[in-house]
């Protein structure tokens, strides 16, 4: 009897080129995603050493990080010459290497973690990498997908491999069906609150359980996307009929006889029933309330029905100091009800929540309503394809009628490196993934939540329990 293995171990074993003398493994990389935030540095480093790109057919490139998301009718108003150069260099470098690239002007352009899946580029059982921490998104397909640094991007381009030490395995079991008015974002924020932002460090997480089985691919991507916020190297969901139905017919997915062959192999991709995980975590999603963050890391989350915690009630001095610092930065008061916190800005978008289902769920809330006076509300579709789909469904009309700004695709205000940012002190209800100090602009304050919750906040002008508007 072969030893039972986790899904992670199975993918790992299939990709070990060899075990290195220092104990690491040299892993074959099947899929590499490249974006404008790292390409310029990686191509420059390759050029300096006279190295080429070994497998240009296994890399897909997009411009997303520095691209402005205002109207694209004339010249693109880049933040500065450095930003313009970053887009020019990903275009030039990919052209030279023969890499497929969707840059500004291509209707498929968009956020790397939205475009990769919707093109059918990322497949189950692959090792997928990208110079971006939210590469964990692609674990939704049962791919071992993880973020890497810029030096490592160069390594992948030059060799189509990566050297790595194997992580521990962690299983997160989510019991469903999940409660009304909650989404994958609420699941993952609750999980984060439960295990903390270093709860997954050194691990690869596999999500299992009835609350996971019922998730759509978009929702699984939201869940896996935030795995990095637990500190995990990657998050995984074993592929199933939901996965296969999503992939079938996508432009870069296999077709014909190759599809049938792939499907047969993908059906075997799951952890053995008695596989041993190094760590087990369980969470009951049946009684969950919609969650928002109140602090400056994604683990500082709470049900919308709760209040800002009181540092004085925390025994551990380090934890107390951390919470006090977060509350101070956020301009909140201990004991203040979360549903009374007023907001200035709403951002619906990002690789976490910028997909078609996210926009649909926001429209459910804002339909025939108006954005509250004094609130600026943005929708930044995750990709040109998402935008086109939303427009075909008339979602843009609902957003515009409610007073939202309907924008072009990109990362935009999730990390605010394209010139789009909040002013100091401004408070945002955001569907992105990080509420770190300064993340959406210096001294700006970010509350993370689902698209439906962000839509509700846009309508009332304060953090709001979306269940009251459904």
């Amino acid at each position, binding site marked *: 009897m072969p030893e039972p293995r986790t899904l992670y171990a199975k993918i790992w074993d*299939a990709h070990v080129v060899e075990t290195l003398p220092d104990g690491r493994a040299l892993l074959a990389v099947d899929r590499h995603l490249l974006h404008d935030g790292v390409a310029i540095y990686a191509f420059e480093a390759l050029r300096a050493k006279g190295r080429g790109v070994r497998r240009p057919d296994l890399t897909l490139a997009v411009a997303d990080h520095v691209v402005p998301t205002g109207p694209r009718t004339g010249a693109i108003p880049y933040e*500065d010459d450095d930003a313009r150069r970053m887009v020019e260099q990903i275009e030039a470098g990919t052209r030279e290497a023969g890499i497929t690239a969707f840059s500004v002007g291509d209707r498929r352009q968009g956020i790397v973690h939205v475009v990769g899946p919707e093109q059918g580029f990322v497949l189950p059982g692959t090792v997928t990498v990208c110079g971006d*921490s939210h590469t964990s998104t692609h674990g939704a397909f049962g791919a071992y997908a993880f973020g*890497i*640094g810029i030096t490592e991007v160069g390594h992948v381009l030059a060799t189509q491999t990566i050297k790595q030490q194997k992580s521990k395995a962690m299983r997160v079991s989510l019991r469903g069906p999940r409660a009304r008015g909650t989404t994958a974002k609420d699941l993952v924020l609750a999980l984060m609150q439960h295990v903390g932002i270093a709860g997954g460090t050194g691990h690869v997480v596999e999500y299992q359980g009835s609350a996971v089985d019922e998730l759509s691919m978009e929702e699984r991507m939201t869940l896996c996307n935030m795995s990095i916020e637990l500190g995990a190297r990657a998050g995984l969901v074993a592929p199933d009929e939901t996965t296969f139905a999503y992939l079938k017919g996508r432009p870069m*997915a296999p077709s014909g006889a190759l599809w049938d062959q*792939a499907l047969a192999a993908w059906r075997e991709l799951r952890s053995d029933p008695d596989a041993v995980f190094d760590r087990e975590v369980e969470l009951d999603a049946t009684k969950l309330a919609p969650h928002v963050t109140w602090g400056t890391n994604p683990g500082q989350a709470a049900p919308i029905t709760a209040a800002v915690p009181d540092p004085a009630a925390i025994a551990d001095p380090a934890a107390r*100091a951390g919470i006090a610092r977060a509350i101070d930065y956020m301009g909140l008061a201990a004991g203040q009800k979360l549903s009374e916190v007023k907001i200035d800005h709403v951002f619906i978008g990002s690789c976490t929540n910028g997909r078609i289902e996210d926009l649909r769920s926001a429209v459910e809330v804002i339909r025939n309503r108006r954005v509250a006076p004094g609130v600026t509300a943005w929708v930044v579709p995750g990709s040109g394809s998402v935008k086109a789909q939303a427009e075909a469904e008339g979602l843009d009309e609902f957003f515009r009628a409610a007073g939202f700004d309907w924008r072009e695709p990109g990362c935009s205000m999730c990390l605010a490196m394209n010139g789009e940012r909040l002013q100091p002190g401004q408070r945002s209800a955001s569907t992105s993934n*990080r509420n770190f100090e300064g993340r959406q602009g210096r001294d700006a304050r970010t509350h993370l939540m689902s698209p439906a919750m962000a839509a509700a906040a846009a309508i009332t002008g304060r953090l709001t329990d979306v269940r009251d508007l459904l």
Partner: protein
Amino acid sequence: MEPFIRHTGIAAPLDQADVNTDMIFPQRFLRRPRSSNLAECCFHSVRHRPDGSLDPAFILNRPPYDRASVLVAGRNFGSGSSREHAPWTLYDFGFRALLSPLFADIFKNNCLNNGIVPATLPEADIRRCLAAASDPRTAEFTVDLEACEVRNAAVGTLRFEIADADRRRLLQGIDEIDETLGRLPQIERHEQEARASAPWNHARSGGN
């Protein structure tokens, strides 16, 4: 990459958990070329007052810590974004070794690729290092990668942990890409096998 054997220098205490790479290198500088000196970006938002002047309350703005080359940090250092600009700015500022109870995965890898030692010590030892570093008279630390030891007048000799593979990489300062390119025959053999067993991964359609 320069090999790292051992290093002696001033250690700055940063007694804060969960310091993320956004704090180490704010996003407004992410477009800067690597060839520029990134030292000024290091911890920029917490190092400066809103008017742009240096905040004397921040540890790295006070002598002798303004020339620190070792950082003693809280748990979960380097979490968040994969930006390699974080180790770049730390390196340009002068840091050669970091001590923490826990490093975030991607950040740790990025340090290794830039010749910075991420040394893991138990929480209790980090508390002692923070205390020693806080007193300028005992702020000098030696980080010895050969012996896996931290040495200091106040705390004595402490063992630190680092994976053997990581230690060897830093000691030798080898170029990882060159090393891997030396394994091309094995890579090609594996690729041939993968083409046979999972051909759909090697025959993607679509694109242009």
